[in-house]
């Protein structure tokens, strides 16, 4: 096991929900006690339904979401940051080390800037280069790595298709030379034929630039193909963390099993799977007590309604937060 690049301990992110005259104001616990290590050099997948807190977790690591309590630490061997407590100067350095690739390549790029200016902006804002020539060199270098045509640098984003725009936004995220990149639903808005191309590019860039990627997605088949480790979230908690192959071959948590069985397979004759989830994800403003999944879990028992299950190691290298995972029938 390599050393973790990101170490998260007891992370809580709360958002206030209005005010009360008496007593404490209600809060939405978007993240409820997250413990997670992201190993350096991994392609780390984070999956969950909408409202599970996966985007909030990604943003909290980048200090773009509040850290109410707990800690997030970054250590790449050369520099280390405690994300919750760092000052403004450290934060500026951290921004060049940790970056975000957005979901929607149509909304993420300013229509009034040329592709060159879009990619160069982070360098200029962070003051990482001393001359225009140096900036141009860096832009050209990263554009080449992202398989952008250098001729295109002078054009405006409207001239490009979704796949090309996503390559531009990847180049912009990588131009400052980050070690850690959060890719939040970065292929969700793309067509299937283009999506594979961007996934392959991310994989190649990861090797090339020795990046650590946190890949956030709701699409399990995409995650299965790209990531080496996968964490599954449900209502602000991690329910299972495991190497991809283990997770997809032997899912342990009932929620992971239900998620996997809900993926439509390409085989028209596949028998209908039995593990249908009934109901919908409860509101994170009013989560169920005990195990947050018990309201939809086919195996829930009395203990699940009272006691919060903690992540515990399984024998095949993963971790699962379920009281009864050992007793469940084989999936």
């Amino acid at each position, binding site marked *: 096991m390599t050393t973790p690049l990101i170490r998260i301990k007891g992370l809580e992110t709360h958002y206030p929900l209005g005010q009360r005259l008496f007593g404490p104001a209600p809060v939405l616990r978007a993240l409820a006690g997250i413990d997670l290590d992201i190993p350096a050099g991994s392609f780390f997948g984070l999956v969950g*339904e*909408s409202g599970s807190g996966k985007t909030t977790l990604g943003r909290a690591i980048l200090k773009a979401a509040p850290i109410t309590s707990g800690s997030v630490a970054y250590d790449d061997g050369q520099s280390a940051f405690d994300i919750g407590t760092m000052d403004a100067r450290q934060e500026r350095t951290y921004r060049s080390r940790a970056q975000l690739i957005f979901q929607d390549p149509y909304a993420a790029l300013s229509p009034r800037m040329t592709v060159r200016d879009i990619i160069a902006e982070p360098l200029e804002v962070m003051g990482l280069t001393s001359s225009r020539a140096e900036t141009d060199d860096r832009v050209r270098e990263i554009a080449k790595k992202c398989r952008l045509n250098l001729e295109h640098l002078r054009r405006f984003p409207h001239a490009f*298709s*979704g*796949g*090309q725009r996503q390559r531009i936004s990847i180049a912009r995220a990588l131009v400052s030379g980050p070690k850690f990149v959060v890719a939040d639903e970065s292929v969700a808005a793309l*067509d*299937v*034929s*283009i*999506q*594979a*191309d961007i*996934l*392959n590019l991310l994989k190649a860039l990861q090797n090339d630039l020795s990046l650590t990627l946190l890949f956030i997605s*709701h*699409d*399990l*088949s*995409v995650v*299965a*193909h*790209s990531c080496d480790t996968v964490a599954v979230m449900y209502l602000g908690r991690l329910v299972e963390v495991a190497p*991809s*192959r283990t997770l*997809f071959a032997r899912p342990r948590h009932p929620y992971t099993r*239900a*998620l*996997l*069985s*809900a*993926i*439509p*397979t*390409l*085989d*028209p*004759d*596949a028998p209908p799977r039995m593990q*249908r*989830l*009934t109901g*919908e*994800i409860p509101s994170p403003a009013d989560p169920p007590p005990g195990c947050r999944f018990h309201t939809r879990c086919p195996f829930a028992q009395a203990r699940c309604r009272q006691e919060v299950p903690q992540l515990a190691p399984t024998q095949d290298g993963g971790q699962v937060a379920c009281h009864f995972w050992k007793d469940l029938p084989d999936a």
Partner: protein
Amino acid sequence: MSLLSVQDLTIRFRTEEGLITAVEKVSFDIAEGEILGLVGESGSGKSVTAKSLMRLMGDNAVFDPASRITLHRQGGDLDVLGLRRERDMRPVRGGEISMVFQEPMASFAPAITVGAQMVEQLLIHTDLSRKAARTLSIDMLARVGISDPARRFDQYVFEFSGGMRQRAMIAMALSTKPRLLIADEPTTALDVTIQAQVLELMKELVAEFRMGILFITHDLGVIAQTADRVAVMYLGNLVETGTVRDVIRRPAHPYTKGLLQALPRIDDLDAPLMPVPGDIPGPLDRPGGCVFHTRCGVAISGLCNTQIPQEVTLAPGHAARCHALTKDAP
């Protein structure tokens, strides 16, 4: 029995930059009780095709004179493109044809209760009394699995969760008992667990009401699990049609093959992801000849870039348009 026939449908849009071809010579049939999947990427013309069935086009749409859309009815066939007055279009707009849109939040009026909207369309399309329409609407909400339907009936759409909105949309579309339901990416905005519930529900309802469904999606997995037949569209052309089994097991057109190879498969994690090379051409530089030749790995220069391929029948009901199919296969 055929429910709806589309023949040589060609739709162009007048824009400032010139005439843009969105759909070109598309023909297909939908039978009663059949789910036809229409697959294609963005810009392939699948939504434009669907909207033309209900005449939901802007003023800048131009139908080619050879285009025909015929709704087969007991009392005589209806020429959909021949309808001139708005009120004549009622049968195809919610009467015999209903539509479920991708974004249910945008399809309900935000300031009118869900129930009032359901009743309103029933009063337009049926001769039910207001009270009977209310009873039917509540009944339909219950049928699509919304709990406490009488209370939900009086709520606004923002009080519904995403899956519930899509269910309510389906309940509303089905309450007039349409013979054809058009579902335009009905599950794309939903989570997989909710998507599975909605797909199950749609299959049950087809079996019960014997209606035809035109199911539009970009997700071949969803098609494999729901449709009987599938039509693959690329840049406004139907490149391949056939039963789901034929198209997915024995894809003939290079584009269909490419789509299947680009799809990450959960049952084979070692298979490399093969993107379809290149990008979808913009609407203004539509390729001549076979529209796919700019991205095709087996394109024959001098043939594919100049001549439009004819439809080749591969098996009963399975056809594709590709020059490589008529040449001796390498």
